[in-house]
């Protein structure tokens, strides 16, 4: 308990006497200090702080169920997985502490670097074109007067479909001998492509899969942003003689910047975590090594590699190391993207 100093009395008094001065966003201002939710206390130490804190019991009670679940099922596992990355464990036996050994393996593991490369390539292939297409799509929908609701629904549906189902039907569409894409190529007398055998086309197929699923979603978000841009801006531009392209780049995009940032961040985080697509695409009964990312392991993403090490090879310690490395990659690229997109605001 901090010792009470005479000077500390004064600030507290002044605080109590001028509650109206405290505007903490939407905090309700009590005209009578009758209820427990009082003005926000400052970080300064004051006598009786414990009592003050305790007076917020309804708030704490309100958030405690969530935080309890959050603590037990997210925070503690995260901390434990960090610990696991420094151990060697097969899931059945005892956990053995091995220091940095797993990370040393990681650095020397060519498959890990392959997985990293795959993940990054797939992410770039899927995110960059997708966001552009979403922007264009949003502009187009924005320009419609009729059928708008139909378009919005039609484009949004892929994002609520299960990835398992999507991976299954994309594997049918891109199948070598009888997939629809090759059949169409053949019909147009173009050479067919071994979509699911060649290293680059495998990544392309996975990227197409991811793009297909999320383009509409991002487009709808951009659309909403566009619809909240004040029309006066556009009118002013028209008066100034700006054409549609100029308007697009000088007005629409800058106004959409926060939303673009949001979609870039979300796409980065989810794109770098892709797992289900390669796992289901190449998880057939004929494959000798399921969970290996297909021919040449070209579809092996970081998270798929983590799953393979942890649950196929029972190498839980190494799997944890891989997962943490993946996290660092995500943080790195999220930060890079943030700087890239947000910096232009300055």
């Amino acid at each position, binding site marked *: 308990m901090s010792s009470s100093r005479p000077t500390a009395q004064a600030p507290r008094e002044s605080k109590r006497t001028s509650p109206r001065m405290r505007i903490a966003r939407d905090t309700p201002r009590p005209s009578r200090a009758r209820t427990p939710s009082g003005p926000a206390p400052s970080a300064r130490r004051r006598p009786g702080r414990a009592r003050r804190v305790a007076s917020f019991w309804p708030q704490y009670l309100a958030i405690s169920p969530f935080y309890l679940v959050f603590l037990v099922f997210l925070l503690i596992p995260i901390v434990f997985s960090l610990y696991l990355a420094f151990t060697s464990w097969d899931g059945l036996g005892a956990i053995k502490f091995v220091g940095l050994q797993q990370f040393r393996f990681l650095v020397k593991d060519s498959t890990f670097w392959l997985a990293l490369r795959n993940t990054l390539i797939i992410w770039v292939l899927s995110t960059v074109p997708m966001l552009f297409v979403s922007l264009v799509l949003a502009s187009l929908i924005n320009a419609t007067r009729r059928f708008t609701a139909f378009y919005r629904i039609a484009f949004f549906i892929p994002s609520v479909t299960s990835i398992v189902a999507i991976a299954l039907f994309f594997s049918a569409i891109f199948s070598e001998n009888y997939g629809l894409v090759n059949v169409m190529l053949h019909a147009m007398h173009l050479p067919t492509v071994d979509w699911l055998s060649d290293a680059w086309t495998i990544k392309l197929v996975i990227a197409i899969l991811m793009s297909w699923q999320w383009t509409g979603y991002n487009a709808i978000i951009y659309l909403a942003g566009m619809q909240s841009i004040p029309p006066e801006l556009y009118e002013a531009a028209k008066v100034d003689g700006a054409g549609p392209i100029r308007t697009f780049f000088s007005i629409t995009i800058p106004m959409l910047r926060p939303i673009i940032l949001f979609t870039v961040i979300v796409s980065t985080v989810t794109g770098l975590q892709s797992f289900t697509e390669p796992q289901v695409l190449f998880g057939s009964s004929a494959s000798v*090594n399921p969970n290996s990312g297909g021919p040449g392991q070209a579809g092996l993403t970081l998270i798929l590699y983590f799953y393979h090490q942890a649950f196929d090879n029972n190498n839980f310690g190494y799997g944890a190391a891989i997962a943490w490395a993946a996290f660092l990659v995500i943080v790195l690229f999220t930060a890079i993207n943030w700087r890239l997109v947000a910096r232009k605001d300055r």
Partner: protein
Amino acid sequence: MELTRRQAIRTGLLGAAGLAAGGTLTACGGGSSSGGSAAAMTLWYWSGGLSPSVVTDATKKFASQTKLTSSVIGGDFKQKLLTTMTSRRYVPDITGIKGEDMPAMLPDADRFVDLNTLGAAKLKSQYLSWKWAQGMTTDGKLIGFPIDIGPTAMFYRSDLFAQAGLPTDPTTVAAQMKTWDEYFAAGVELHKAIPKTYLVDNAGDIFTAVVGQSGSRFIDSSGKFVGDQDHIRTAWDTAVKTVTLGIDAKINDNSWNGNIANGTVGSVIGAAWHALDIEQAAPALSGKWRVAATPDGPSDNGGSFLAIPTTCPDPALAFQIITWILNPTNQARGFTDEALFPSTPASYTMSALTSGDKYFGGQKTIEVFGPAAQNIPNQYVAPADSAVSAPYYNQLINVENGTSSDSAWSAAVSQAKQIFAQQGGS
């Protein structure tokens, strides 16, 4: 009024959530730490791992002593089994273990009941000794009871062979395709005569067969990595030959079924149980397939076991069930129903095995598999064998797609060494 309706909806939702939580609570009342009391036992196997009719009969036979529930587990069986055993919940009382997974289970033998303590030794003479040994740990504990063995053979389309001017009778085929090179030469002829047909489905199967024919595999019995030695290199080169000769159909995915059915694949080197896969993929081709001896000799591929996890409440009863399901007569039924080649030599003279197989045009396949079973070379399979061999198969697919054989080989070996080190080898 709006507020009360809101309240009602909320309460309803919360109530539903509560009910759901409570419902799942009660629904799992039986699943405490083991699969159940001796009054109920669970058996896990995969599709094609046991004959379903034998399992049904076992359920009936032991009904007075226990209620046996069997589950055919889909997906990755080993992962599900290990996850379950780690969680110690819903652990089956009797479980199958695939042949390729058994070596990795042996170090964790204390998770399974030593069947010798239940009197397994008395039955040992009824089973092939090398198969019996595969289910044993180095200190003499028997954790896996043999189901089937996987003697390899060459399954071939006799009608396509005829079309290409190749011999069709199994004995003649075996005589003329005694070595891999002779077999491949015939494949070149086949592909020339019927361009849409290839001799083999993928290079990996050839690799598996040749590795199985040699005396050792990727890790020798002293625990040393030997996956870079000549015997593996020979297997590699043999497999790669199918690619360079253009007789490899390069099928490594779900289209295998369709390609078997439409004649893209002219022959398959596989174990006896593989016949079931062919039959299920191409029922319309009944009578068009035959079986001949593998070039350069047979090997063992697959063939599984039944085991009893220690969580089983009544191992003695479980053992009775196992040994009944796997006695010579029932193993013969397994062959008829699911192409599971018996590990009990006594079955080989039973009519189920000596009569002709309709799918193979009435051929008595025992004439091929029997001698194959007798001549399977003895091999040591290390626990890390499955994990260490994975890169070779991945790299073979790369070779099929154009990578040079040498660079793929070095990549495979270096990756295999890394995995070997990670799995605790040195």
